[in-house]
């Protein structure tokens, strides 16, 4: 192994300044394509042209390596391949495929680089090039960062085109017809006389054919599937209770398990007494696992009950026991020693503030939040001396595979991870607790399949949280304009916390701390953005929209504060400051859509926010009314630009889902600590938005941008700010701290 590769293993480069020093990979290493993992277990007469397509005598199988966490990833990946391969829906199966380096995701890694995604300069492109190469060499297969579509867009269409052209070559040879006289349609190669030769009948011949490397992708005007409404293949099963999520799997002879481990995350297990639990019905075994105990029983209910009957003595938490201590640590981080990076300094902020008068100083706060998708964490395992199988939905499947390998003492190749449909994630399934504990149980019960299910309470207690954060903002306004903004933000580094657990320690400043702030399109004449890194408190992780979920709230609520102080209109002033035409059009569109500036009733208010995240601008206008039952969110208008909408229904779902996610958590969610434990244990204390609170949401998709981007996360960050700004407009009460339910009642 080259030295460069070792360096890369130790210090991965997401969000890292380490790239400036440069990490060189040998030309051979970087140019060499990864092996096609499908070749490992092809049947006789089955052909695979690349890691995404295999064809046998009776079926066409497309591989969708980005994990489906509810965003429709399997469906859109298949559609990208099918578009070029000339397959109709219903003519192919879609599988998650095995974890493999061939499925590396360069886009997710590149987007983590400390450059705006829209920055096309030499420095940014060089930096991204190095990081993309690192992702390839490491075989970093990851679903996240709204990268499934941008990572797949060219890659999977190319995979489809390569398969198509190779099948045509096979047909040409078998039927003795020149290739240029063949065409493809609906899963078949058509001969000049009109005879259709199904791909499946060509499988054996195509397996002998050299893969055609050079292909031309079709112009979007020729698309049959992409850009049009598509019916997702998983939805009939999800509507009839017949889709097996990971938690639903049943294996012959399977036992059911649950775990209890220290609710003070990362704390030790001092002692426990399981005598009473041992005697309860259905209990097969009580096992020790890291910092906790697993109960293996005949059914999940008996496992839960027995776990409840165990008496534990837990060690202390490695972070402040009370929430006040967490906030104090964040407050103490606004100091030179914790400065992670000054991300932006336009003009001369110190001079502008000295000239004054200064507006502010305002402080904004965002609490810890949990992911808590509705399917609790689970994993099913079967470990033997020769191999380990794990059935789990995971966004980081190769890291999960490695963790299992390390625990059960097998090589990674002997661990077979079967990626499942997830009942939601929002970043939760980038972590490894369920995988680790399932492996620890499985290795103690070799030969017996075991399904591990977390109770909802256990899941809440061990969620790796969205970062807590504070922002402090001073500004200068004059002549109805913002002249200066000095914004400081302090949060722990969720990425450093998370990547550390994934075995990929980060170096350098974390671009997620100021995300949604420093990359704004506002050309404020004097503008400074400083990010402080709070030393790790409770472990944190990527929560839908990551840094921008806090940063976007801070920036856009502060913008409203300053615009109000200036006596300007929130839309007009943002448009005046906007220096990116793509962003300006998004703002204009949301203004038009919402009829911004039109009169509203007395207790009705509108708020606006524009946030840039994951390469996408999203502007949202929220309209609220303040009535006798409290504040109700009546209407939301959203405008955004992802370059090209490939799957209109999934796009609409992701946009609205992100808005609802952002609003719901801003309304009433927070995770707080007492005695080192989270005080919220289930949805009665952490509900988010309920259906009766859901506004009507109207969406406009622009297609001015040149790059195709993903929309799973970017609609989240503007929602909280737009809601705060709307409540201010309706009631005159400025909310600078989430959740807002601390200060106002929602209907």
């Amino acid at each position, binding site marked *: 192994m080259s030295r460069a590769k070792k360096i890369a293993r130790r210090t991965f480069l997401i969000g890292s300044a380490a790239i400036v020093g440069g990490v060189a990979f040998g030309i051979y290493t970087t140019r060499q394509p990864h092996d096609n993992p499908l070749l490992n277990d092809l049947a006789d007469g089955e052909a695979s042209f690349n890691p995404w397509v295999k064809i046998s005598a009776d079926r066409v199988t497309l591989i969708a390596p980005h994990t489906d*966490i509810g965003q429709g990833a399997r469906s859109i990946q298949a559609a990208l391949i099918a578009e070029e391969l000339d397959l109709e829906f219903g003519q192919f199966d879609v599988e998650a495929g095995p974890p493999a380096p061939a499925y590396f995701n360069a886009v997710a890694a590149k987007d983590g680089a400390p450059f705006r995604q829209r920055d096309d300069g030499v420095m940014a492109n060089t930096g991204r090039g190095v990081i993309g190469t690192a992702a390839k060499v490491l075989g970093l297969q990851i679903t996240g960062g709204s990268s499934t579509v941008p990572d797949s867009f060219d890659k999977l269409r190319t995979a489809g085109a390569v398969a198509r052209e190779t099948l045509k070559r096979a047909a040409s040879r078998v039927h003795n017809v020149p290739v240029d006289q063949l065409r493809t349609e609906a899963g078949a190669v058509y001969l000049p006389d009109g005879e259709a030769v199904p791909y499946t009948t060509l499988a054996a011949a195509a397996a002998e054919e050299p893969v055609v490397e050079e292909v031309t992708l079709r112009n979007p005007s020729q698309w049959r599937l992409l850009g049009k409404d598509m019916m997702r293949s998983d939805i009939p099963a999800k509507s*009839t209770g*017949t889709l097996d999520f990971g938690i639903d799997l049943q294996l012959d002879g399977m036992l059911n398990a649950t775990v209890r481990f220290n609710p003070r995350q990362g704390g030790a297990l001092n002692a426990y007494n399981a005598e009473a639990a041992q005697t309860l019905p259905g209990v097969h075994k009580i096992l020790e696992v890291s910092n906790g105990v697993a109960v293996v029983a005949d059914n999940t209910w008996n496992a839960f009950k027995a776990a409840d009957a165990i008496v534990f003595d837990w060690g202390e938490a490695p972070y402040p026991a009370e929430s006040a201590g967490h906030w104090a640590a964040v407050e103490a981080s606004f100091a030179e020693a914790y400065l992670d990076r000054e991300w932006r300094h336009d003009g001369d902020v110190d001079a502008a503030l000295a000239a004054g008068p200064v507006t502010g100083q305002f402080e904004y706060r965002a609490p810890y939040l949990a992911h808590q998708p*509705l399917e609790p964490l689970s994993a099913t395992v079967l470990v033997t001396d020769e191999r380990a199988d794990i059935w789990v939905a995971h966004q980081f499947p190769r890291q999960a595979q490695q963790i299992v390998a390390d625990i059960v003492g097998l090589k990674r190749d002997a661990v077979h991870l079967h990626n499942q449909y997830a009942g*939601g994630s929002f970043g939760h399934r980038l972590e490894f607790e369920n995988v680790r504990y399932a492996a620890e149980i499985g290795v103690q019960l070799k030969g017996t399949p075991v399904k591990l299910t977390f109770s909802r309470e256990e899941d809440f207690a061990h969620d790796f949280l969205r970062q807590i954060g504070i922002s402090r903002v001073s500004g200068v306004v004059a002549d109805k304009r913002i002249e200066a903004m000095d914004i400081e933000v302090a949060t722990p580094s969720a990425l450093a916390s998370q990547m550390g657990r994934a075995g990929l320690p980060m170096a350098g400043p974390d671009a997620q701390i100021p995300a949604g702030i420093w990359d704004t399109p506002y050309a404020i004449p004097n503008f400074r953005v400083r990010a402080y890194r709070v030393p790790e408190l409770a472990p944190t992780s990527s929560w839908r929209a990551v840094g921008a979920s806090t940063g976007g709230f801070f920036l856009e609520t502060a913008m409203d504060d300053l615009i109000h102080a200036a006596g300007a209109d929130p839309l007009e002033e943002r448009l005046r400051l906007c220096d990116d035409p793509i962003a300006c059009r998004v703002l204009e569109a949301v203004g038009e859509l919402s009829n911004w500036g039109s009169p509203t009733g007395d207790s009705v208010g509108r708020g606006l926010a524009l946030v840039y995240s994951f390469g996408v601008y999203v502007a949202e206008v929220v309209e609220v009314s303040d009535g006798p039952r409290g504040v109700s969110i009546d209407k939301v208008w959203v405008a955004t630009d992802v370059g090209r909408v490939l799957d209109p229904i999934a796009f609409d779902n992701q946009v609205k889902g*992100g808005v609802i996610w952002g609003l719901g958590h801003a309304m009433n969610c927070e995770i707080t600590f007492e005695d080192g434990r989270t005080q919220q244990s289930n949805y009665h204390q952490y509900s988010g938005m309920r259906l*009766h609170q859901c506004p009507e949401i109207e969406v406009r998709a622009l297609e001015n941008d040149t790059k195709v981007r993903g929309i799973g996360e970017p609609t989240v960050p503007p929602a909280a700010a737009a809601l705060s700004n709307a409540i201010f407009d309706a009631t005159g009460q400025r909310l600078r701290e989430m959740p807002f339910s601390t200060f106002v009642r929602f209907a």
Partner: protein
Amino acid sequence: MTTFTVNGETVTVDAPGDMPLLWVLRDALKMTGTKYGCGIAQCGACTVLYNGTAMRSCQLRVQILDGADIKTIEGLGDTEAPHPVQAAWIEHQVAQCGYCQSGQIMQAAWLLANNPDPSDTEIDNAMSGNLCRCGTYPRIRAAVRSAAEKMRASET
């Protein structure tokens, strides 16, 4: 031993009296369409019809099941012959992750069985106990309205 019917079939289970129907369905009868979400009647993912009424199966203990008539998502309809609510869910492409949708559909089926023409407020009131973390609420509303219309049309 407790005997009751599930989707019209008689089942007899040997389970402790405090065991919730949710786990009887999922682990004993291997009917996993009914989902575990919270265990405390806060999310509605485990909704079934108990003697015709939408109830959270995590709260229905074996001790009250003797002679009960239970209907689960599997008994409502299938992909070949979906219940009108299921058909509307598919037509409106409601599901994202889909984990809450068994419960949402059972709740909506119960609503429409009792109120063929619900107002928007009645839909909101009936469906607000069912949590969806993905935010499919706008499509749930549209699908309930559409199913109601189709069910009324087929009655006349």
